[in-house]
C-alpha cells in the first residue's frame, strides 16, 4: 500500500506545483511590475477599454482582460467565482444584492477611506457597501431605467409618451389603432421582461422605502395587495390588452432596439447602458437615434425613472493574497478615480459620479433626455438591496406564458428571497 500512496502523493504534488506555477501571474522579475487579471463585462464601452490601456502605459503593469459575456453576465461570473477562481480586479454589479452574493466580508478587500468615496456624495449609502463597509469603486453613471419611445410614432399618432401605467394603458389603445406595436418586450433574452414591473414599483419605493421593508422582512412581496403583486397584475393586464409584440416569448433585446428605431414598435422599457445597442440597431448612425428616439420616466402613478448602479465601471478588488498584485490593483482603482477620471468622462460622454468633475460635451440627445429625467425624479430600483431577486426574470417568463398568476409568482419569489436572506444572515430573518 505504501508505494502506491507515495506515488499518488508525488502525482498530486506535481499537479499542485504545476497549477501554482501556472496561475501565479507573477511579475517579470526585478521590475516591480505585475500582470493583473480583470474580469470585465463584454459590454464595456470603447472609452473604458481605452482606460485599461492607459493604466497599463502609465503604471507599467499589464492587464489580462477576461471578457464575461453581458448576456448571462451574472450567471457566468458567479460560476467562475464559485470555483474559487479570483481575478485581481472584478467588474460587477454595485447593487447590495449583487454584492452580497460575492460574500464580500470573506472575499473582497475593503476600500472604506479611499479618497473617491468622499467625492461620491451619498452613492455608497445605497450601493457598493455592506454594513457600512465600502467594497466597490463605482465610476459609471447609474443605469437609468425608463421608457425609450419613438418620437415620430407618437407624433404621427397624436399622442404624448406615458409617464404612469394608466397613461400607458391609454396610449396602448391609441397606438394599436394606429397599427403599431405599443410596447416591445424581449422574453427571448429573459431579463428585459422584469423591467416594466420594476418601473411600476418606483411609485412605492421613494426613499427606497419598499425595498428596505422587504429586505428587513417587515413586509413580504406576497402580502395581500402588495405593490409587487400590483406591479405584476398591471403587467399581466397590458399583456391581456394586447399591448406587447406577438413574439414576446422568443424576441431578443436586439430585436426590441431594432423595432424601436424603425418605428415598428412605439416603446421599449430598457436602461441607459443600452445606448450602444440602440446605436447598433440604427446602423451606427447617431443622427437616426437622435431624431427618432426619446426617453422618459414611468411608474405606477408618477413620472419617475428608476436607477440602479450598474456593473459597467464598477470595480471590486478580490483578496488574492499576493501583496504586489494587490497593491497594483489598488493603484488601478486610484487611477480610475483619480485625475484620469475626467478623461474617461470626456471620452465616454457619460455623466460623472465624482464631484468636481465636469460633465461631458456633445452628449447625444437621448442621453440628455436620460439625464433630464434622472434629475427630475429618480428612485433606486426596489430590488437593489434585496438578495435572491435573481429569480424574478424566470417567474416573469412563467407569468407571460400564463402558468403563474401574480400572487403565486410573488409567493414563490418571496421564498427565494427568504432562502438568500437567511443564507446572507441579514437582520430580521
Amino acid at each position, binding site marked *: 500500500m505504501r508505494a502506491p500512496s507515495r506515488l499518488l502523493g508525488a502525482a498530486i504534488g506535481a499537479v499542485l506545483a504545476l497549477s501554482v506555477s501556472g496561475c501565479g501571474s507573477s511579475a517579470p522579475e526585478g521590475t516591480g511590475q505585475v500582470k493583473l487579471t480583470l474580469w470585465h463585462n463584454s459590454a464595456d464601452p470603447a472609452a473604458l477599454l481605452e482606460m485599461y490601456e492607459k493604466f497599463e502605459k502609465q503604471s507599467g503593469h499589464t492587464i489580462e482582460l477576461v471578457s464575461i459575456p453581458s448576456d448571462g453576465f451574472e450567471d457566468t461570473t458567479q460560476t467562475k467565482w464559485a470555483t474559487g477562481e479570483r481575478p485581481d480586479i472584478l467588474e460587477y454589479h454595485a447593487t447590495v444584492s449583487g454584492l452580497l452574493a460575492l460574500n464580500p466580508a470573506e472575499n473582497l478587500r475593503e476600500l472604506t477611506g479611499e479618497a473617491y468615496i468622499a467625492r461620491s456624495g451619498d452613492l455608497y449609502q445605497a450601493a457598493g457597501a455592506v454594513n457600512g463597509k465600502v467594497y466597490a469603486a463605482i465610476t459609471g453613471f447609474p443605469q437609468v431605467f425608463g421608457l425609450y419611445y419613438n418620437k415620430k410614432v407618437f407624433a404621427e399618432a397624436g399622442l404624448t409618451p406615458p409617464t404612469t401605467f394608466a397613461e400607458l394603458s391609454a396610449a396602448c389603445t391609441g397606438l394599436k389603432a394606429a397599427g403599431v406595436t405599443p410596447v416591445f418586450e424581449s422574453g427571448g433574452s*429573459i431579463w428585459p421582461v422584469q423591467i416594466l414591473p420594476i418601473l411600476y414599483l418606483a411609485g412605492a419605493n421613494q426613499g427606497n422605502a419598499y425595498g428596505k421593508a422587504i429586505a428587513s422582512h417587515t413586509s413580504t412581496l406576497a402580502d395581500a395587495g402588495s405593490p409587487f403583486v400590483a406591479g405584476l397584475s398591471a403587467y399581466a393586464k397590458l399583456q391581456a390588452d394586447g399591448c406587447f409584440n406577438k413574439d414576446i416569448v422568443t424576441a431578443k433585446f436586439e430585436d426590441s432596439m431594432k423595432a424601436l428605431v424603425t418605428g415598428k414598435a412605439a416603446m421599449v422599457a430598457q436602461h441607459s447602458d443600452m445606448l450602444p445597442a440602440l446605436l447598433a440597431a440604427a446602423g451606427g448612425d447617431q443622427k437616426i437615434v437622435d431624431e427618432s428616439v426619446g426617453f422618459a420616466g414611468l411608474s405606477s402613478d408618477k413620472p419617475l425613472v428608476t436607477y440602479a448602479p450598474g456593473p459597467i465601471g464598477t470595480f471590486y478588488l478580490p483578496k488574492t493574497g499576493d501583496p504586489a498584485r494587490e497593491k497594483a490593483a489598488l493603484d488601478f482603482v486610484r487611477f480610475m478615480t483619480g485625475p484620469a477620471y475626467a478623461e474617461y468622462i470626456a471620452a465616454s460622454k457619460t455623466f460623472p459620479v465624482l464631484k468636481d468633475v465636469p460633465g461631458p460635451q456633445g452628449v447625444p440627445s437621448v442621453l440628455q433626455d436620460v439625464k433630464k429625467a434622472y434629475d427630475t425624479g429618480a428612485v433606486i430600483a426596489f430590488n437593489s438591496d434585496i438578495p435572491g431577486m435573481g*429569480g424574478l426574470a424566470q417567474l416573469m417568463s412563467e407569468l407571460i406564458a400564463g402558468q403563474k398568476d401574480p400572487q403565486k409568482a410573488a409567493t414563490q419569489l418571496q421564498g427565494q428571497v427568504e432562502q*438568500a436572506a437567511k443564507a446572507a444572515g441579514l437582520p430580521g430573518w
Partner: protein
Amino acid sequence: MRDMTRARAAWLPWALPAIVLVAVFFVAPFLLNVRFAFSSWTSFRAEITWNGLDNVRTLIDQDLLANAVTVTVLYAILCMAIQNAVSLSLALALQRTGRVNTVFRSAFFLPTLISPLAAGYIWRGLLAPDGAVNSFLGIEWAWLGEPATALVVVAFIDAWKWSGLITLVYIAGLNSIPKSLLESATVDGAGAWTRFRRVVFPMLAPALTFNVAVTLVGALSAYDVIAATTGGGPGDHTRALNVVMRQQWGQGFFGTASALGFTVTLLVIATAVPLVWWLRRREVTG
C-alpha cells in the same frame, strides 16, 4: 473455478483503462461532491453545513423539482424515440456502401460535428416567427415559443444533431447480419417486412441496446441545446433539471444546484441500469 479466475485475469487488462477513466472522471468526483447536495452551500457565506434534505424541500416548495423532473423525462423519451426511429430508417436506406450513400452518410453525420450551442443558435434563427422555416411554409408560428411545440421541436433539433452518429451504429449492426440468414428467409418465402421483423430487427439487438441507452441517458442530462434555443421557456415548459441547476447556481444557491445535479445522476442510474439489463437480456432471449 481456476478457469474462471484465469478468464477474469485475461479480461481485466483490457477493461482497466475504461475502469480507471470512469473511476477518476465520474465515480470520484461524484462521491466527493454528493455531500454538497445535502449542504447549505451558497455564495452568500463561507460556511458549508449539513442540512439534510432541506435543499430538496426548498426545490419542492418553490415548484421547481416536480416540473423539472417531468420535463427531463418527457424530453428524454422524445429524444430517444425520435432519434432511434429516424436513425433506423436512415440506416436501412443507406445500408449499402456506394458513392451516393457515402455522400448522404457524410451529410447526415455533419451535424454531429457542430457544437450543440451553435446548432441551437442556428435552429433558433431558422425557427423564429419571422425565420426561414415560417417563410417557406407561409405561416406565422413561434415554434420555440409555444408551449404546444417547444419541447417536441427542441427534441427534434437534438435528434438532427445526433442522428448521424446513431445511424452509423445501426448501419454497422445491419452489416453484421449474416447474408445467409436473409437469403434463407427469402427462400422460405418471407417478404421484406417479415424479413425485417423476424430477422433484421432481432439481430440488431446489440445496436439497439447501445443506441437506446445512449440517447436516453444523453437526453436526461440535456442542457446545451435547450439553453441555446429556448433557455427553458416558454414559461417553464422546457426547463429541464440541468437548466434549473444552472439557474440556481447563477443565483448563488450552490446547495440546491448540487441537489439538482444529484437528481440527474439518480435519474440516469435508475433509468439506465434496469434498461440496459432488460435490453441485454432481450439480446440473449430474443
